[in-house]
């Protein structure tokens, strides 16, 4: 499958005595979309925050494009980007202003042309001069996704990217991301509570519970292996009885 873009080894995070992420190891290959699913509080966002460099792991290593984020944080962050439903862009700036500022922060070249491309991709051209704070939550999510693709990242971290979108827009976004990952050979780590979405969009799924990866595999094959009808049924079983897996 080629080389990996993300390699996580023995990642652990303690908050006091409580373990939030427990010795997690996985890889994401270039061009692959990996679903990170699990019940609330399983450690998905904590894992993403550590990969983003905004949370220091208690132990373990994170390599992006072969570089350790602990040693080359700024260089590594230039190769990646993220979008999360809980991190909207400042509402007191317009869509264009926000995208311009983040283009500068990510060292994007030909800024205006890149912004226009992303505005078109996410159907935001009409909102170019609208303040982000007055956009609907779905439109804000699309602005956040436009920001996430500005620097044409090699690794994309998406934390519930379609959570506030209607089914039609969510489908468009899934296709957009899928197409981008395929074209640019971008690795994507995608968290979601929508198991149908994960089955549709992800090449591989990691099932996280209580900070540990319990299951890993193809999202359509994995449920059958454990005698379940679909990923949702498997998810519910893992969430309720993780020790049986």
């Amino acid at each position: 499958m080629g080389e990996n873009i993300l390699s996580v080894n023995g990642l652990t995070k303690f908050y006091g005595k409580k373990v939030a992420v427990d010795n997690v190891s996985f890889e994401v290959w270039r061009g692959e979309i990996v679903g990170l699913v699990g019940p609330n509080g399983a450690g998905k966002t904590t894992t993403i925050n550590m990969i983003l460099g905004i949370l220091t792991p208690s132990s373990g290593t994170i390599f992006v494009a072969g570089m350790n984020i602990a040693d080359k944080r700024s260089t590594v962050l230039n190769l990646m980007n993220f979008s999360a439903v809980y991190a909207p862009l400042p509402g007191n700036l317009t869509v264009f202003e926000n995208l311009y500022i983040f283009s500068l922060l990510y060292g994007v070249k030909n800024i205006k042309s890149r912004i226009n491309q992303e505005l078109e991709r996410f159907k935001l051209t009409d909102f170019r001069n609208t303040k982000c704070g007055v956009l609907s939550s779905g439109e804000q999510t699309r602005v956040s996704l436009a920001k996430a693709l500005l620097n044409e990242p090699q690794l994309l971290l998406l934390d519930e990217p379609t959570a506030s979108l209607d089914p039609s827009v969510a489908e468009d976004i899934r296709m957009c991301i899928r197409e981008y990952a395929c074209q640019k050979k971008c690795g994507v780590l995608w968290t979601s509570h929508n198991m149908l979405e994960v089955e549709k969009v992800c090449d591989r799924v990691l099932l996280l519970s209580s900070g540990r990866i319990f299951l890993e595999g193809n999202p359509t094959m994995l449920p059958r292996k454990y005698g379940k009808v679909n990923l949702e049924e498997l998810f519910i079983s893992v969430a309720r009885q993780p020790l049986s897996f």
Partner: protein
Amino acid sequence: MDFRRITAIVLRQFYLIRSSFSRVLPLFIWVAVDIILWGFLTRYLNSVNVTKFNFVPTLLGAVLLWDFFIRIMQGVTMSFFEDVWARNFLNIFSTPILVGEYLMGLVISSIATSSIGIAVMFFLAIFVFGFSFFSYGIAIVPFLLVLFIFGIALGIAASALVLRLGPAAEWFIWPIPAIISPFVGVLYPITILPSWMQKISFLLPASYIFTSLRAIIFEGNFLYFNLLIAGLLAILYLTLACLFFVATYRHAVETGLIARYSAETIS
């Protein structure tokens, strides 16, 4: 240091000010009120005193320098607060920006925003109340430089405090200039302070500036040694403030506070 990333922080402040009258007005309104108030007071004192002593360089000049210091400090904190209010730390610190670049962005934003207030302040003092820089001679340059460095240092330290304690700690920051003003002797010599207050004064660069200012006006003395101590203290505080901010940022990344800033504490 990446110039483009620093520009992003400054540009963000420009965009915010450009589109908000409520951000433009405070840039100059309070300093203008202050200068007008003290300008008329000095004019009145000049009219009633029999010795023909000119109060403008001592009182109005001192207030002008103190307001300059406050503007610089608040320029840094205001720019930092924009990220607090917009809950933007997660977005900002997950980009390749370095802490040093972020701080440099705050400092340049402060210079840009405070220069508007300072221009208004100097315009009123010079053209309405007859203040003259020639009263201080070349000493005005080190006076402004030391107050600038000390203002930046306090602004960065105050920002670190808010980063450490959470958004509610904002109210700690606004009274800082008022709290230290009695110790630095803006309007009176620090020798009239009780000895415990004088000990604190000796640790504050601004107190050496206001002592030097009065020495020039009253005795025509240029206190080189005072200015040297003030300069060294200001540089020391700037270094300590930057270290404090970096340590606070590391603590926030260690504990997860950056990602969950609105929680104020992670425990």
